[in-house]
């Protein structure tokens, strides 16, 4: 079905990004918004705007009925969910299609399969994609658990099969510790969730986070190479690159081919990302999960491939077959993205909303700033702290790092603290220059470099 009018069921910088892509395709745009977002940039840029509820996301951006009603009122024939909120809600995907509209994303059933850790793991194994060694689902028998621990090798993580949130997680470094911890983990799981079933997984101690971008049209899929997002704080990515500086070419080819195999095996439609842990000491990679949506860090892939991923996902949703063969997609140069958030890195990353008193946006060759900010805009306190993403491209990684440092020098957001000082320090860090990092590198670095994280007045 050809799309004519696209409703954006999201907010912030990604809503702006989607509106831009839709306009370039000649589509009319509808922005739904909470009462707190009436003066947002997305509302200003969209052709129409519809208020759908009070500030709390649970009463607006997560209200399926209100969003569908806004679509009906405005005659929208497609819905783009962005990331977060309802983007990976299979019931919302189904409801949009049941209402006779196009869902810009994979089928609800694909979201269900890939969103379930155990089902995704089974699908990955069936497609020949390596997964973190562990139990394929819950394990109740202690003898079986012990045998499995010995076969996958220590350290082993033991966690509750039910629930989440870190409760019931234990790490055993040897068999003796395993024998002691397993009954504890089971008892804690039983107390917390009423179910003592456990799940076991090998602990990959020094891993990089590497993910592969894919595009599929339901029958065929291509990859758009990988991103490395190893710089994380509290499991949140703060700095992303494409390609990974740590991946030998042969490994890149294997990794990306595995992602295409899995996407094709599940008949994937739209843009998606397969996340892996990569152990560069052993050269092993392990699939961890698939995100069935556009991701925050998609621009680095766009910069090194020249593709417009958001535009492509809209075209595919509208029924067009994939426009690229794998050999059409070429990797050129190096791109880096940093997340500019309304947080004060010198005060434990305390979030701080406020009004943008002045804004200076960096420019020049190879610089892109995807943001929701404008001068005079008041950042509301009700949503996440992401203000924008500064992205640079250059011919190689050292040049991209120098360009990022220069662009960060130019960026000025006055009126509220941002994470700019963190990125300025990282862009000039010797370990970062060597790409010598892993997913647990940043947190200790933050403790050692606390004195470098204050915004310096000019």
């Amino acid at each position: 079905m050809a799309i004519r009018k696209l409703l954006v069921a999201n907010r912030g910088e990604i809503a702006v990004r989607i509106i831009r892509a839709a306009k370039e395709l000649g589509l009319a745009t509808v922005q739904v918004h909470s009462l707190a977002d009436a003066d947002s940039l997305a509302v200003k840029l969209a052709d129409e705007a519809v208020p759908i509820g009070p500030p709390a996301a649970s009463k607006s951006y997560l209200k399926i009925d209100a969003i569908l009603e806004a679509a009906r009122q405005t005659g929208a024939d497609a819905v783009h969910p962005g990331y977060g909120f309802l983007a990976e809600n299979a019931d919302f995907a189904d409801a949009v299609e049941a209402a006779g509209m196009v869902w810009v994303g994979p089928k609800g059933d694909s979201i269900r399969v890939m969103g379930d850790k155990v089902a995704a793991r089974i699908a990955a194994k069936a497609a020949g994609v390596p997964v973190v060694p562990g139990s394929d689902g819950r394990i109740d028998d202690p003898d079986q658990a012990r045998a499995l621990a010995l076969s996958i090798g220590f350290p082993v993580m033991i966690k509750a099969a039910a629930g989440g949130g870190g409760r019931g997680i234990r790490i055993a470094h040897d068999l003796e510790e395993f024998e002691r911890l397993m009954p504890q983990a089971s008892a804690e799981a039983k107390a917390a969730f009423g179910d003592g079933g456990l799940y076991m997984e090998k602990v990959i101690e020094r891993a990089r986070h590497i993910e592969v971008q894919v595009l599929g049209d339901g029958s065929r899929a291509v990859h758009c190479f990988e991103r490395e997002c190893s710089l994380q704080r509290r499991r949140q990515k703060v700095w992303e690159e494409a390609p990974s500086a740590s991946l030998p070419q042969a490994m890149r080819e294997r990794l990306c081919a595995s992602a295409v195999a899995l996407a094709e095996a599940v008949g994937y439609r739209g843009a998606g990302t397969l996340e892996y842990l990569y152990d560069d000491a052993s050269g092993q990679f392990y699939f961890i999960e698939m995100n069935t949506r556009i991701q925050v860090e998609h621009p680095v892939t766009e910069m090194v491939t020249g593709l417009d991923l958001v535009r492509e996902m809209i075209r595919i949703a509208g029924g067009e077959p994939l426009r690229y063969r794998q050999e059409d997609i070429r990797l050129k140069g190096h791109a880096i993205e940093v997340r500019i958030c309304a947080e004060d890195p010198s005060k434990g990353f305390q979030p701080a909303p406020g009004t943008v008193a002045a804004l200076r946006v960096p420019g020049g060759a190879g610089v892109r700033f995807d943001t929701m900010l404008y001068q005079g805009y008041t950042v509301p306190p009700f949503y996440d702290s992401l203000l924008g993403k500064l992205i640079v491209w250059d011919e190689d990684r050292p040049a991209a790092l120098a360009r990022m440092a220069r662009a960060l020098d130019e960026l000025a957001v006055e009126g509220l603290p941002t994470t700019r000082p963190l990125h300025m320090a990282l862009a000039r860090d010797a370990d970062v220059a060597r790409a010598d990092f892993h997913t647990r590198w940043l947190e200790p670095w933050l403790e050692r470099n606390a004195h470098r994280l204050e915004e310096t007045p000019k």
Partner: protein
Amino acid sequence: MAKQILSPLPGTFYRRPAPDKPAYKEVGDTVAVGDVIGLIEVMKSFNEVAADQAGVITAFPADDEEPVMAGQPLVELG
């Protein structure tokens, strides 16, 4: 004028530590300086609001789970 405890931050006011837990304080309760009277959620981060004055609570001018501005009264003390 009655004493008030003001919100230190803009965000969403919560009177209970978790949806399934009782409220920190009710009307009629005695508050000492430093007692937690609620939470303000700012950009998905939860901040405890400690009383900066002592007294007996006569009213909650801000409703549970509602948006508040920095400086808006959360509690009135008698």
